[in-house]
């Protein structure tokens, strides 16, 4: 450090006093003219050269520095009459209410003033909250006084007329700023202290401006347009307005103009100064540019999402980042990201030249900025930065490289980058991937990492960041690598896992009926780079054949045991013993699948207690990641081999199914009609807390929902086990029974806000129905299926229901975004102390034990210290029978 190390203990905000403004000012601004006819800034104008350098190369008229060094300098403007600072109106109002209009003391008896002051001083450090409520109490007490305890004069009521006019009711009437300034400057320091004002840094009379600080030009730079025209900053415009209004007022004062004119001009100056500070004041006309755009003045620069605080200080734009559309690539590993050549040749990593990487670095430099893998810059030991685009002789430069140089080389395979998709709602939204440079223009990612990012490929874009130091890279890799986030801290289960085709593929491969020829086995094993022996075929004659389970088992560690029911194990396919015919109980002994199939509950993402979860818990995330890389490739290769698709016929309802579902639905219609008749006859028993008609609606909704479910299960019953739609629903790859029902038999009741659709005409939704028709069809029950096609009226109801869904998502995202922001702001600085308590930065206890049990869900077996059942299966599972 330069002279001495200074540590910041705190920051204190105060108000600039007129004296201070004059002291820091380098020039008085006296004229509204900005430039002369030659376009040279006029001295004494708002662009006075003494306020700072504007053009590069110039030297500052005040400090003699160049553009880069000169911090800019303040000027000042003497106002002809004092003006109320709009930001302090509330404080001024408080002070006027709590102090006496004639002696200007706080309206609290002398002895109380001293008592309160001592109390306040004692409270201030130890009990800040109490101190501030004491202040609030004193303020209220003081403003209630009808008579001044010091001078005994009667007090008037002060009224604030927005935005900045104070009226003394029954007294002097309107209080002008100069009167207020006088009043405020008479309040003694001791009185201010108990009103919560620190007079050392914020004397109240400074809240009334009579000297205006003119900010440096650097704060309000003018832009030169292509036409050569100068466009001034909004602040400069506003300052010119202020000066002009001030000049006019000054002239009028000097010439002894009538009171009314003076007051108007004063009012105008007040308006300009007000809007200079805040241009969004309620009840004040907005100052606009000639184009009609509201001016962005001081307050607007700071406020809001794009303001100085949230836009420039809490969040910044960064270098070494890229953003483009994402697309899937099942051939990548889950830890990888595909990066286009163009991006890889723009983003760089600084690498120190050492004797060990000298040859490699020379190669990069030789390749130059336009050939991958090359380099864009070389920094020599003196710190000079060479742009390789302009280096004539790359060969010579490459030769001259020696340890001590830094080469900013292109991104190459294996580099560490951070990958992110907004909204970044949890920590898995930013993960580290290893670079794989690929042709094309999109970022490529493995499909299994879609769930943590919540990404799909309908046009999603993602961001990529390149850490620039070895420390940053090491930290990022250790903490953020994808495989370290396979398990989520939310529930401890894997959030990265099989989705969609991976699940169907796994199921098809491990089906009992899947037999593979030697050619197929070779193909499959080649895709996963299997180098071992091909296992003994399960069937030797007439042709050698292998089961899918055999192939998949090659990927499992040899000492891995697992027993668990699959998703398919339900209804009439339920399996609870290892002798079960339906093959729905997964049995893995010594790394071999003996029975059972693979489905969502075995390898799926967001499936706690699955085989994948236990595999990761037993063998670690590296094994888990490697397993996923290979298994998923295997499944995809198999699903490619056999082919998997769906067609219209797959959702065609069976004849019997149609009959049954039609009966179910007509029965339900009868039931509904009965309910309506009962309702009309007044025989319906109301549900407690509901009106009769509400009861009817609830009952009808219930009947119809049941009807749809019954119709659905009636038809699903007849679906073939080889039907791909059914396979997808059962294995959990995509869709569920509801989707099948809607496609093949009946769409069911459409609803808006959880009610049957009733809005429209009086007593009916559309003119096609009779007044007061309560039947299912008149209120949005769609008895067609997507297979059969909807009638026009049904389409109407369906779209009404669909619209609600769209609106809901739109509303929900904005609401949850705001909620997230507030939560993060409240919780971001909390930390876990070594004693496992959660504390704030000030040492306050928030939780006595993190989560009451100080358990990291990621690192424990479902919150328990030991998972006995699992330990048994893990160790002797190979001997167990279920």
């Amino acid at each position, binding site marked *: 450090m330069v002279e001495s190390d200074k540590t910041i203990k705190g920051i204190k905000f105060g108000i600039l006093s007129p004296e201070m403004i004059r002291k820091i000012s380098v020039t008085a601004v006296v004229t509204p003219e900005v430039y002369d006819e030659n376009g040279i800034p006029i001295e004494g104008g708002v662009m006075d050269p003494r306020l700072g350098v504007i053009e590069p190369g110039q030297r500052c008229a005040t400090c003699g520095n160049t553009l880069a060094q000169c911090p800019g300098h303040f000027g000042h403007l003497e106002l002809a009459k004092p003006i109320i600072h709009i930001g302090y109106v509330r404080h001024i109002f408080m002070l006027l209410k709590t102090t006496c209009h004639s002696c200007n003391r706080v309206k609290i008896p002398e002895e109380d003033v001293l008592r309160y002051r001592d109390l306040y001083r004692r409270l201030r450090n*130890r*009990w800040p909250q*109490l101190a501030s409520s004491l202040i609030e109490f004193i303020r209220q007490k003081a403003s209630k006084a009808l008579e001044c305890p010091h001078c005994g004069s009667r007090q008037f009521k002060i009224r604030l007329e927005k935005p900045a006019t104070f009226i003394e009711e029954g007294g002097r009437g309107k209080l002008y700023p100069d009167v207020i300034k006088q009043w405020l400057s008479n309040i003694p320091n001791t009185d201010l202290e108990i009103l919560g004002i620190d007079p050392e840094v914020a004397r109240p009379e400074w809240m009334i401006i009579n000297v205006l600080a003119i900010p440096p030009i650097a704060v309000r730079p003018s832009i030169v347009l292509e036409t050569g025209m100068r466009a001034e900053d909004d602040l400069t415009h506003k300052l010119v307005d202020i000066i002009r209004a001030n000049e006019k007022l000054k002239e009028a004062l000097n010439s002894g103009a009538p009171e009314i004119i003076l007051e108007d001009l004063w009012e105008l100056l007040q308006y300009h100064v007000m809007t200079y500070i805040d241009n969004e004041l309620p009840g004040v006309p907005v100052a606009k540019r000639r184009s009609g755009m509201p001016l962005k003045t001081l307050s607007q620069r700071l406020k809001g999402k794009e303001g100085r605080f949230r836009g420039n200080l809490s969040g910044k734009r960064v270098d070494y980042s890229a953003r483009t559309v994402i697309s899937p690539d099942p051939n990548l590993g889950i830890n990888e990201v595909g990066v286009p050549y163009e991006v890889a040749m723009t983003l760089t990593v600084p690498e120190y030249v050492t004797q060990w990487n000298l040859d490699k670095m020379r190669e990069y430099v030789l390749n130059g900025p336009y050939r991958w893998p090359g380099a864009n810059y070389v920094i020599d030991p003196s710190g000079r930065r060479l742009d390789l685009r302009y280096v004539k002789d790359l060969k010579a430069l490459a030769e001259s490289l020696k340890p001590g140089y830094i080469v900013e080389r292109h991104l190459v395979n294996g580099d560490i980058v951070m990958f992110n998709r907004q909204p970044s709602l949890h920590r898995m939204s930013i993960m580290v991937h290893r670079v794989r440079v690929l042709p094309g223009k999109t970022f490529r990612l493995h499909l299994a990492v879609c769930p943590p990012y919540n990404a799909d490929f309908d046009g999603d874009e993602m961001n990529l960041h390149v850490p620039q130091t070895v420390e940053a890279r090491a930290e990022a890799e250790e903490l953020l690598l994808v495989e370290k986030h396979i398990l989520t801290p939310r529930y401890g289960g894997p959030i990265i896992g099989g989705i969609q085709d991976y699940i169907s593929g796994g199921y098809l491969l491990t089906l009992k009926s899947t037999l593979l020829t030697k050619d197929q086995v070779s193909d499959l094993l080649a895709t996963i780079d299997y180098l071992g022996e091909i296992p003994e075929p399960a069937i030797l004659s007439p042709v050698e054949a292998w089961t899918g389970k055999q192939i998949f088992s090659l990927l499992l560690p040899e000492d891995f045991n697992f027993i668990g029911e699959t998703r398919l194990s339900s209804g009439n396919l339920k399996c609870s013993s290892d002798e079960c015919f339906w093959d729905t109980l997964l049995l893995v002994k010594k790394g071999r699948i003996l029975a059972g199939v693979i489905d969502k509950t075995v390898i799926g993402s967001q499936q706690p207690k699955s085989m994948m979860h236990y595999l990761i818990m037993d063998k670690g995330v590296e094994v888990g990641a490697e397993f996923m890389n290979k298994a998923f490739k295997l499944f995809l290769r198999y699903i490619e081999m056999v082919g998997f698709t769906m067609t219209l016929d797959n959702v065609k309802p069976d004849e019997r199914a149609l009959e049954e579902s039609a009966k179910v639905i007509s029965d339900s219609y009868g039931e509904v009609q009965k309910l309506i008749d009962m309702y009309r006859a007044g025989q319906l028993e109301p549900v407690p807390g509901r009106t009769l008609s509400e009861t009817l609606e609830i009952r009808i909704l219930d009947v119809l929902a049941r009807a749809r479910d019954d119709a659905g299960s009636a038809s699903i019953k007849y679906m073939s086990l080889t039907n791909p739609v059914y396979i997808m629903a059962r294995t959990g790859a995509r869709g569920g029974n509801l989707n099948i029902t809607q496609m093949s038999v009946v769409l069911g009741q459409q609803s808006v806000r959880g009610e049957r659709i009733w809005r429209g005409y009086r007593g009916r939704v559309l003119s096609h129905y009779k007044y007061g028709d309560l039947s299912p069809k008149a209120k949005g029950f769609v008895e067609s299926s997507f297979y059969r096609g909807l009638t026009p009226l049904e389409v109407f109801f369906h779209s009404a229901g669909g619209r609600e869904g769209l609106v809901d998502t739109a509303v929900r995202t904005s609401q949850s975004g705001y909620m997230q922001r507030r939560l993060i702001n409240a919780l971001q600085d909390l930390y876990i102390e070594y*004693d496992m*308590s959660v504390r704030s930065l*000030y*040492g*306050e*206890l*928030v939780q*006595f*034990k993190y*989560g*009451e*049990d100080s*358990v990291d869900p990621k690192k424990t077996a479902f*919150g328990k210290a030991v998972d006995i059942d699992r330990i048994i299966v893990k160790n002797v599972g190979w001997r167990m029978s279920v």
Partner: protein
Amino acid sequence: MSDKKKRIEEKILEHELVPKHELLTREEALGVLRELGIRPEQLPWIRASDPIAKLLGAKPGDIIRIVRKSPTAGTSVAYRFVVVG
């Protein structure tokens, strides 16, 4: 003194949703503070006017221990510093 009111107040402690509260002695309180390494006001606060504090007869400056059932940890212990109010 309304007999009825008293009974309701006593019932607060018996309610299954109200965890066990107890007033610490001075020695216990000091022990707790030493263990946590904090000043009393860094604990979460409870007002002396809080029904449960009134029932325990807690005065500002006291520390209350709360032992509650927790779905994750079985039982968990928390403390409250009694403040004016």
